[in-house]
């Protein structure tokens, strides 16, 4: 638990990153929010009290809340109570991973998600209890209670699938100046709520995984020889490389020609040189919850490259669950060049599965 998460929110500070901001928040009368929210989530797990083992960090980083919810727990590590830092969050995540937990449940916001991601990556399933000010990341349950319920289903083995979830954060300082600049920091593996993709009664249950597989098969089956495929970041596009028997760069852009990686984690210069030399297509996914196609997490696909490749050679791939989670909001482009942004707007046919397309608007 990040004990100070969310404190900046009620007092209008747009976040709680940095020690002086915490001090200002306290000055303005902010009270810790994360404990109450974590407690709500733990209530949903109460039925499993005798069947699960809870590991946590000392005092306000988990122990207090866990004990108050009536759970016995093993406490790892040590902290300086009242003066916790992001390093404590990272260390806690590492210690919990080393102890072999099945699921890491954290309470916090985007900053906390970033720390967890930096510490454990996508090595173990993680789920966020929403308790922060900024929650642009797709790693949180829709409410603390729902996060608890999802965690319960997962630890009981009633759901087994996980989905990729973007860890996003905005520069708080810029945000305070009314500039929004969200950045993709990585991916966590989150238990996937079956209802979003396919209800329990449909009997599928492996919806997200099979959709990813279908997308990859669709894209790879249409690949043409002598064409450069610029494969953007994300686990959706990683599956495409996986189907080709290749391993790529999760947070970078890889160039694939004739089913081989020609350049891994390419920068703008390499990409530009590629698209000037040969016909090219760009394969990108969508940032979950926000809907960004270009301009977040894939800035190396610059306006010059996009102008050169053209809208008709952009292949957008995303699972239906990811698109429906946008709740009708359009996909977004913010490349930095208004002309290129305009060129990319209109409608795009998103590859959502094998021989499946969803026609969806793109705005800038």
């Amino acid at each position, binding site marked *: 638990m990040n004990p100070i998460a969310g404190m900046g929110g009620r007092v209008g500070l747009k976040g709680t990153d940095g020690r002086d901001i915490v001090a200002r928040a306290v000055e303005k009368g902010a009270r810790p929010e994360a404990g109450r929210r974590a407690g709500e989530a733990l209530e949903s797990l109460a039925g499993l009290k005798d069947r699960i083992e809870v590991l946590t960090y000392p005092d306000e980083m988990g122990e207090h809340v866990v004990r108050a919810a009536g759970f016995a727990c093993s406490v790892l590590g040590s902290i300086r109570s009242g003066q916790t830092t992001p390093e404590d969050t990272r260390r806690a995540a590492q210690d919990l991973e080393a102890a072999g937990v099945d699921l890491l449940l954290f309470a916090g916001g985007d900053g906390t998600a970033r720390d967890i991601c930096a510490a454990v990556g996508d090595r173990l399933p993680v789920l966020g209890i929403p308790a922060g000010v900024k929650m642009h990341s797709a790693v949180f349950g829709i409410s603390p209670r729902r996060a608890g319920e999802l965690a319960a289903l997962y630890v009981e083995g009633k759901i087994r699938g996980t989905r990729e979830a973007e860890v996003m954060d905005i520069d708080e300082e810029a945000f305070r100046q009314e500039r929004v600049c969200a950045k993709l920091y990585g991916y966590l593996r989150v238990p996937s709520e079956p209802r979003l*993709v396919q209800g329990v009664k449909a009997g599928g249950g492996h919806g997200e995984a099979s959709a990813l597989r279908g997308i990859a098969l669709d894209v790879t089956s249409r690949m043409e020889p002598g064409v450069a495929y610029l494969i953007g970041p994300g686990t959706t596009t990683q599956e495409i490389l996986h189907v080709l028997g290749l391993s790529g760069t999760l947070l970078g852009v890889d160039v694939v020609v004739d089913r081989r990686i020609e350049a891994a984690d390419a920068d703008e210069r390499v990409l530009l040189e590629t698209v000037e030399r040969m016909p090219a297509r760009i394969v990108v996914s969508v940032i979950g919850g926000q809907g960004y196609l270009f301009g977040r997490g894939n800035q190396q696909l610059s306006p010059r490259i996009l102008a050169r490749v053209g809208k008709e050679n952009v292949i957008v791939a995303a699972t239906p669950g990811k698109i429906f989670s946008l709740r009708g909001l359009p996909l977004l482009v913010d490349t930095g060049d208004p002309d290129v942004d305009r060129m990319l707007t209109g409608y795009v046919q998103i590859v959502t599965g094998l021989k499946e*397309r969803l026609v969806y608007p793109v705005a800038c």
Partner: protein
Amino acid sequence: MSREIKLRKYHAQVWDEPLLMDLSVEGQRGLLVPRAEEEIRARYGSAQDLVPASMRRRRPPDLPQVAQPQVVRHYTRLSQMTMGNDVSNDIGVGTCTMKYSPKVNEQLCSLPQMADLHPLQDESTVQGILEILYKTRDFIREISGMDEVSFQPSSGGQAVLAAASIVRAYHTARGEGKKRNQVITTIFSHPVDAACPATAGFEVVTLMPDAKGYPDIEALKAALSERTAALFVTNPEDTGLYNPRIDEFVRLVHEAGGLCFTDQANANGVLGKARAADAGFDMCHFNLHKTFSSPHGGMGPGCGALAVREPLAKFLPVPVVAFDGKKYRLDYRRPHSIGKVRDFYGNVQVVLRTYAWIMSLGAKGLEAVAETAVLNNNYLEKLLTAIPGVSISYGPGRVRLDQIRYSWEKLTAETGVTSEDIERRMTDFGLQAYWTSHHPQIIPEPFTPEPTESYSKDDIEYWAAVMREIDREARQDPNRVKSAPHNGVTGKIDESAMLFHEKCMFTYKKYKQMKQAG
């Protein structure tokens, strides 16, 4: 709804009934077949010899051996544990159009003239049912504006698959079969409208709704190309919204060289009011087992009547019923036909019910069905939207036809009680569990009631009163709702096992194996 509605007391009848297989006792028989008489045996030999040796079983099938009274009791008990249409109120089971099937229509189907017919009888001996098929065809032509009809498909899905096969045959005949490989549908169309074209080999392109909740016409324009084979849409969609620009959709698809099919499983709100052919469609289907008297939902015999315009008639499944002014016959000589989608000429008893139902109502009566169904639905909407936890996601404020997909999202956010919890809890009040939504579920915490024309004002008010009560209960005692059902045949079942193949028992053999393994 000003008056107080008394919620009924209900408890399901519970029998600890074993599986039929487990009732088996070696040597018990339900029926003893008498030995054939000497003369017959001398002439035809043993019955077994009539089956070619290569087709005979080596071992008899492992059927349960149970006496007749035990079988009757077994199934009667099982029926007592279900909550059927004759017992309860099925308003909740939307998109299924759970109307009441008049008992006289059931009696007609039980008459020996119908029940004892065999599909292999000579045409000259089945002129009566052929006449009914032919005349019902004329009714469907009139209702849809189309030119020819097949009753062969035994379900809506089979009719849609036949339509997708006709699309392929049509483009192949014009030399464009390879090129035109995309079928366009909408996200609130029935899933068969995507699944059947996919089964027929097409790539499926899905349109999302626009800000008003209607299919996005600009998205359609963006999707059309020389690869477009057809448009497959349900109208009205499951949101209850009738696409007011449907004729424009059809025109655009025709201009791009595609065909247009409309799924009319939701026909109950437009019967006698809007005809598919008048909107320009080339094909449509009706679920006779929803809209036209036959009960739906029991996995019993159904009929997806597929109606097409003249240029596509030659592709319809064989046979088609023909009439030369004197005699009815089955026309198999149709070289362009897509072939059969199932044996014979369909579930003719469903067609008989349709015939009887239409005859009893007349043209004006069919319109009255649509008007009453729409009126009932709009009354239910007034009652439900007054409940604090209920909302409508797409196209709020717009007039709906036969059904509406509502959302409990507000209630879930406030109490944690989900639509599936309510689905179980409502059975405690003697109501059939409702239908949540087709997949994909893009409306959160959905439910989709459809009050049809059959339900009375009291029925509708009772149904809404139960929803109101559960909303109240969810705020005061959410666990009472979450742990439901309390008065049912079973308690709450852990449905998550259905997600995992290895936990499911699809056959008795698997059941025995898992039981042995503990």
